[in-house]
């Protein structure tokens, strides 16, 4: 095993700062208010995230960001997932990363500072109406410097200023990645009614919309980017699973039935321990993947897939036990367990569900002769 887990004082500081800020600003009441709100996120909150430097966390310093790496991203994602942060932070962080990987220096300087400052919410629009999500499945067409086509299930579709879109060049058939500004009427976004009100999404249509075609090798950039997306989302899911476990454990310690707290019963205790076990394995994989990404190791892609597979199992499991063990109360909207369950189920398939990840892991180990990380 060549991957060394990196976690230094700087990561602890970010974790503590993020945890404190989120604890104070994302209250259950605020979550509920925004769940029922048309827009779904708070512009004032987004401004604060920009001021904290979080929107630009992984944007290079010379483009106005903090210049941090994958472990920092993982830390922030985990804390934001713990509180179900109803803001397009992950979408923006990942969009910035894709621009950085696919663009040339001039393009990075053109787009990244606006993102880093919080001025522009950004999102990668990659899911097709069919549900196919890989880059090569794109049906968006690039004609010269104009994009036509549609994408669905786009995170923050209605609030994003920038869309980063995999497209296919009509003349050559080559895959490219394009940045499209939302400001023209050639780009229309329509809200989708989503399972998870804390992460808004929509359909986006491009009608000959002007774009900036990122100069780098699109397929190479996408392949380098995907582990970032999978790892960051897996980290966010780990935070949420932890919160679901904590809320259920607290309930099991206080809810008394049959003359004792229900957590005394092994039928409650043992499954919660199983949730803990799944969560700890998930966190180990997440931090291994993040450390590998920062070290530039070849194992990063495989570890990211493993982390996402683990997250896709552990988070829904944790939330399922949260609802179940809150009993009758868990079945009502009043209990917060279902908010986490919705986030878990909506996150489960993103960037590849567990089945898809396991298939890729099997291919790597059995067909491609990869080493176990």
């Amino acid at each position, binding site marked *: 095993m060549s991957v060394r887990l990196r976690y230094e*004082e700087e990561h602890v500081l970010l974790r503590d700062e993020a945890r404190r800020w989120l604890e104070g600003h994302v209250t259950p009441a605020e979550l509920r208010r925004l769940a029922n709100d048309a827009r779904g996120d708070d512009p004032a909150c987004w401004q604060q995230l920009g001021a904290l430097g979080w929107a630009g966390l992984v944007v290079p310093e010379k483009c106005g960001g903090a210049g941090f790496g994958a472990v920092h991203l993982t830390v922030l994602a985990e804390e934001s997932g713990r509180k179900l942060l109803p803001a397009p932070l992950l979408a923006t962080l990942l969009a910035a990363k894709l621009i950085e990987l696919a663009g040339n220096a001039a393009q990075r300087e053109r787009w990244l500072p606006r993102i880093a400052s919080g001025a522009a919410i950004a999102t990668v629009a990659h899911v097709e109406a069919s549900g196919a999500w890989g880059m090569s499945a794109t049906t968006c067409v690039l004609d010269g410097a104009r994009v036509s086509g549609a994408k669905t299930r786009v995170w923050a579709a209605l609030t994003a200023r920038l869309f980063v879109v995999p497209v296919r060049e009509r003349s050559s058939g080559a895959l490219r990645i394009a940045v499209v500004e939302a400001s023209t009427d050639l780009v229309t976004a329509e809200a989708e009614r989503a399972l998870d009100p804390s992460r808004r999404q929509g359909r986006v249509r491009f009608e000959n919309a002007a774009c900036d075609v990122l100069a780098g090798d699109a397929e190479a950039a996408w392949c380098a980017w995907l582990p970032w997306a999978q790892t960051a989302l897996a980290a966010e899911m780990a935070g949420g699973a932890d919160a679901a476990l904590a809320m259920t454990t607290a309930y099991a310690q206080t809810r008394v039935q049959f003359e004792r707290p229900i957590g005394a019963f092994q039928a409650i*205790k043992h499954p919660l321990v199983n949730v803990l076990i799944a969560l700890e394995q998930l966190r180990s994989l997440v931090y291994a993947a993040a450390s590998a990404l920062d070290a530039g190791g070849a194992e990063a892609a495989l570890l990211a897939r493993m982390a996402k597979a683990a997250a896709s199992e552990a988070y829904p499991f944790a939330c399922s036990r949260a609802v179940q063990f809150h009993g009758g109360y868990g079945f009502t909207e009043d209990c917060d367990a279902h908010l986490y369950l919705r986030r878990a189920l909506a996150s489960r398939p993103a960037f590849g569900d567990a089945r898809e990840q396991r298939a890729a892991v099997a291919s790597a180990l059995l067909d491609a002769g990869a080493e*176990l990380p």
Partner: protein
Amino acid sequence: MRIPGVEVRPLVKLTGEGGFNQVIFTNARIPADALLGREGQGWELATATLSFERGASEGSAGASGMGGVGIGELIGLLRSAPPELRGDGAVRDRFAALAIEATALRFNAARVRVPGLTADRPQALPLMAKLTGTEHAQRLADFGIELSGLHATLWHDTATPGSGEWAHSYFNTYAGTIAGGTSEILRNVLGEKVLGLPKSR
């Protein structure tokens, strides 16, 4: 062990192997200076010894180095298996789940040594190491048996080299899940010491 009143009766494991014994003490007299610690301190000493075995002491990843044992052999088995087995989606899915778990357990062992990454629940990884490693080994060996199809009906049959190896390994995994704190007891311990849930009694 040779004083009067001490009788050793060998036990046979479910694998047919020896190694364990019953020791029966009948009025066996020992000198007063053979006492370890104080009189009445037996439970304390026994549980202290157990904590080393179970790996709950600080920084330890536990007694089982079993996270990696077996997965290498499984990879080898499948890489050289016939295409109908190696290409089967259900087989690949289950294999991948075991490979992911093996990797996670190895990184659990590494993460124990990184304090910042265990700050929220510092006891969790040491207390679950033996439990998770032994259950993983059991699931893995069981899968190995399944993959060997009808060879699984054999037990070290000389005409079929390798027959019974996975079953032998699988039988022995019960030593892991029963000894040193059964999986069920360890789940109680984790629930109580890490999650803070009340005791069951």
